[in-house]
């Protein structure tokens, strides 16, 4: 099992529904967010191109956050989902420093918080909250180890990129062009 997400950047309108759905589903404190949207503008005036990227923890294959965690609070569960056990976390910040995507933050209660791919929903066979609410259906969640899954087929047929591949963490959020 290897969970991943594929996001069609040209379908995304940057509405922010994914961000709000996550905040509601996961009781994310006010002002904080586990996912966010980046507006990317390319080209020279007047030939400008714009697309949106819905970003979150990349649930990397090679996890510097888990490696640097001194207590083992940061860990990887079945399916490659990176999680934090709150009462093992001492709030040292090593994982926040280790993440090239700034996907982790200190929860106001002190422990480190981040995207969980909504593993509680995934366990029930549901999509993560962000994916399930997307009005343009630009986000796809699934298992890369299953060659027949929608995401495997999309990645086989569509051109895609990941964020900061040069950081060497093998990120698992794919952006379809």
């Amino acid at each position, binding site marked *: 099992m290897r969970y991943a997400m594929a996001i069609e950047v040209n379908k995304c309108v940057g509405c922010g529904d994914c961000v709000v759905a996550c905040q509601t589903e996961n009781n994310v404190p006010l*002002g904080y967010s586990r996912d966010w949207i980046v*507006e*990317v503008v390319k080209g020279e005036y007047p030939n400008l191109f714009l697309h949106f990227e819905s970003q979150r923890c990349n649930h990397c294959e090679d996890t510097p956050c888990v490696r640097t*965690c*001194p207590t083992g609070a940061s860990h990887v569960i079945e399916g490659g989902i990176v999680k934090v056990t709150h009462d093992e976390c001492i*709030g040292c910040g090593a994982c926040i*420093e280790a993440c090239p995507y700034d996907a982790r*933050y200190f929860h106001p209660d002190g422990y480190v918080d981040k995207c969980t791919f909504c593993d509680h929903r995934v366990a029930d066979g549901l999509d993560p909250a962000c994916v399930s609410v997307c009005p343009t259906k630009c986000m796809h969640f699934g298992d890369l180890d299953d060659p027949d899954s929608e995401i495997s087929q999309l990645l086989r047929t569509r051109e895609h990129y990941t964020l900061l591949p040069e950081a060497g963490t093998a990120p698992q959020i794919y952006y379809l062009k």
Partner: protein
Amino acid sequence: MEERLLATARDIHGLYPHVHIWGWPIATYLFLGGLAAGILLFATLYYLKGKEDDMPFTVKIAPIFTFFFVSFGSLLLVYDLHHKPFFWRLFTAFRIESPMSWGAWTLMSVTLFSLLWPLSFIDDIHEYLHERGWHRMEKITAWIIRMEHKWKLFRWVVMFFRKYRTVFAWILLFLSIILGIYTGILLSAFNAHPLWNNSILGPLFLTSGVSTGSAFVMWLSNNKKERKLMSTIDMALIATELFFIVHMIMGMQAGPEAYKEAAHLFLGGQFTVLFWVVFVGFGLVLPFILEALELKGLHIHPALPALLVLVGGFIFRIIMVYAGQMSEYHFL
């Protein structure tokens, strides 16, 4: 042209515009850890060389300070934690991959040994204080000696340590090197910050820490031979540090874009003056020259080069902690 902007609000303290979650407490701890490592390294090394009577300050007196340095450093670390009630979780796990994990264990062991080491010399220390006329301190050692005679277990621990001191000296020598190198490796383990992510940082921090240790001994010792030796050693360490620094920047300049940007923080960027003038100029080159002149026979108060090295070492860690967090990959 490519422009990236955050389109949804993410007002999280310490993440934007760049990660800034570690500040002066971490830098101070790195400094104190390196300083303690340096002092203990000299103490154990010269003890093992049989110089305990020729160099009493290095072997017996200076290590007393290390207990306070590492204890205060540990307090700063706990103060910096965001989930403080769970700090004990550090000691229910040992993760070899995480420098912070084995660093925490090393720090705890060094704290314990740095208390036992001077205790095993308590009679000599008492005599030394008497000779130098430090009567207030003498009262404290007299009290400890009284306690030692009163409490059997305490006496047993001190005697045990005294009996196997050579074995403990080897252990402590090893631990002090680990502590010194760990203060650098802690930072170099973070791939997300190119300025930290180079393999020379561990040796550089170790050298700098040992240099501050030698400066500390040079400053407070009253033995001319000891001072001269520490001054000579410090010069060699400063030269090594300068070599490592040039090496580090060359390495980053030869690297990918994010590493070149990291080097630029020191080569025209906002840390240029602080790094080259304040740290390298006043913290390395000037004390090197002063020490060289002193060896040539010019009368220079040893406190001057020593304080320059110590302040320089502290500023170096402040620069590395702050500049390191500014050096990152750009996903935004």
